[in-house]
């Protein structure tokens, strides 16, 4: 490792957190770091602290929730405990699980404009940002619609556009596809990949590893409020520890593991494409 590292965009140190009126901590001594432009997948069983972790990254925890907060969370050089949420919101965008509850305006355009309006930007600037955000996400045609009329996948894209209009450096998504059908889920995840390529740091909480693991730089597994594994997806998903945690491993990973022990050669494939290419290569 180089002695001088690039400044982390997110730096979490020794974070422990207990919700008010709760006796058990939701996060225990979490250490986490993300470099600018990274795509980090966060996964783990229900109740492992993923959602709490997301809310700690944009300062909702502890600023709006209270509770017992130890350790530090730095986002783009700002300490979340001493920075108001609206200030952090311009650096970290948070996408929630159920799009129904994060859209509260009566048209898509208004929804996307809401953030920049709050920042009191000049009107021309707002209009430009709205256009731009809708364009990147690919929903310009939905501008006049009411969020109520849209499908779950479209709603989630509106939510993402609404955050992009504030030009955040980081997007944090808390199981954005939990309520979506697979086709919409895939298109939302592909959108994240595209945004990441454009330079946005992405922290994505997701169960559907088979759809996304090959697109991420790193995979972090939470368990009982702690970070149980952290590393490149090909290492983490193939580690013995993770299979013990009961994380739903993609079928390709399961097959590759079985083949590895059969042929005595480590295979670490993440997609059907990769594994098929390997097999075709071997059989010719």
């Amino acid at each position, binding site marked *: 490792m180089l002695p001088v590292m690039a400044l982390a965009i997110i730096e979490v140190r020794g974070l422990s957190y207990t919700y008010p009126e709760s006796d058990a901590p939701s996060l225990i001594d979490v250490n986490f770091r993300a470099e600018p432009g990274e795509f980090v997948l966060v996964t783990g*069983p*229900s109740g492992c602290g993923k959602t709490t972790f997301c809310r700690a990254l944009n300062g909702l925890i502890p600023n709006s929730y209270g509770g017992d907060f130890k350790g530090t969370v730095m986002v783009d050089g700002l300490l979340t405990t001493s920075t108001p949420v609206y200030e952090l919101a311009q650096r970290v965008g948070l996408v929630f699980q159920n799009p129904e509850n994060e859209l509260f305006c009566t048209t898509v355009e208004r929804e996307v404009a809401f953030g920049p309006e709050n920042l009191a930007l000049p009107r021309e600037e707002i209009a430009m940002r709205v256009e731009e955000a809708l364009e990147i996400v690919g929903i310009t045609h939905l501008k006049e619609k009411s969020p109520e009329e849209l499908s779950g996948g479209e709603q989630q894209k509106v939510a993402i556009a609404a955050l992009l209009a504030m030009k955040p450096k980081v997007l944090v998504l808390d*199981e954005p596809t939990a309520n979506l059908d*697979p*086709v919409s889920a895939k298109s939302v995840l592909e959108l994240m990949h595209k945004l990441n390529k454009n330079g946005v740091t992405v922290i994505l909480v997701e169960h559907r590893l*088979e759809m996304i693991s090959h697109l991420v730089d790193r995979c972090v597994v939470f368990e009982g409020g702690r970070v149980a594994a952290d590393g490149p997806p090909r290492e983490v998903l193939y580690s013995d520890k993770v299979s013990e945690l*009961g994380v739903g491993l993609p*079928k*390709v990973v399961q097959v590759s593991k079985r083949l590895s022990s059969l042929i005595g050669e480590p295979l670490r494939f993440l997609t059907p494409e990769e594994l*098929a290419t390997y097999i075709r290569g071997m059989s010719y």
Partner: protein
Amino acid sequence: MISIDGVTYSYGEGISALDGVDLEIGDSELLAIVGENGAGKTTLVKHLNGLLKPQRGRVIVEGIDTRETTVATLAKKVGLVFQNPDHMLFAETVEKELSFALVNFGLPPEEIAKRVEWALIEFRLSNYRDRSPFTLSGGEKKRVSLASVLCYDPQIIVLDEPTTGQDNLQKTRLASTLAKLNRQGKTVIVVTHDIEFVADFIPRVVVMSKGKVIADGPTEEILVREDVMDASSILPPQLAELSWKIGLSTPSINTEMIVEEIRQILRCDQK
């Protein structure tokens, strides 16, 4: 026994949610209904306990035409477990939540007590008997909602998207509960777009698209058909995709079979 015969239903606005659906479901079957959002899955299951009545065609459940009876009567035979437990939990305690349906159906108090007891144990809820259902975790709430339907012992059980928000362990537990019910002779119908769950645990699959049934049969045969997967715009199971990409003559969704097939291919070449 359920027989759905040319059922058409539209919510107005011109588009048919169901467009001539024919489907036979035998006694003690375990099957999944899959399809993209808006394919008509939920509309179809609402026909099974009479929440919706067919505008054309008919639905016969255990010999009863759903148009000729009430939801309350059918609900005793067909238990519907909805996706979001928050849409049904309302009582002060888990115990009262479980007895709600039993009281509605007018069972005698001793019987109610007995069944509630059974459900508390069966679904590992005994510790929560006097807790408010609202204070439970997501997974626990799902169990309460399932228990509150199963405690009145319906012959047919329909679950709408039971795996949403569930982790791998919870899914496996759910699958074994469903298998157990099925072994006891219940008909279990799972409505879902969790195709990997279907591939792993459900033997029969009905694929719907745009209000029609486009395929129906054994899961391992249907889910590896590229034409069906394309037409329904649901994503195929990973192993089916792998089978197609390798070019297996008999595509499969079974890990063992795939490993075996691949082993054969690799062996042949090593010779």
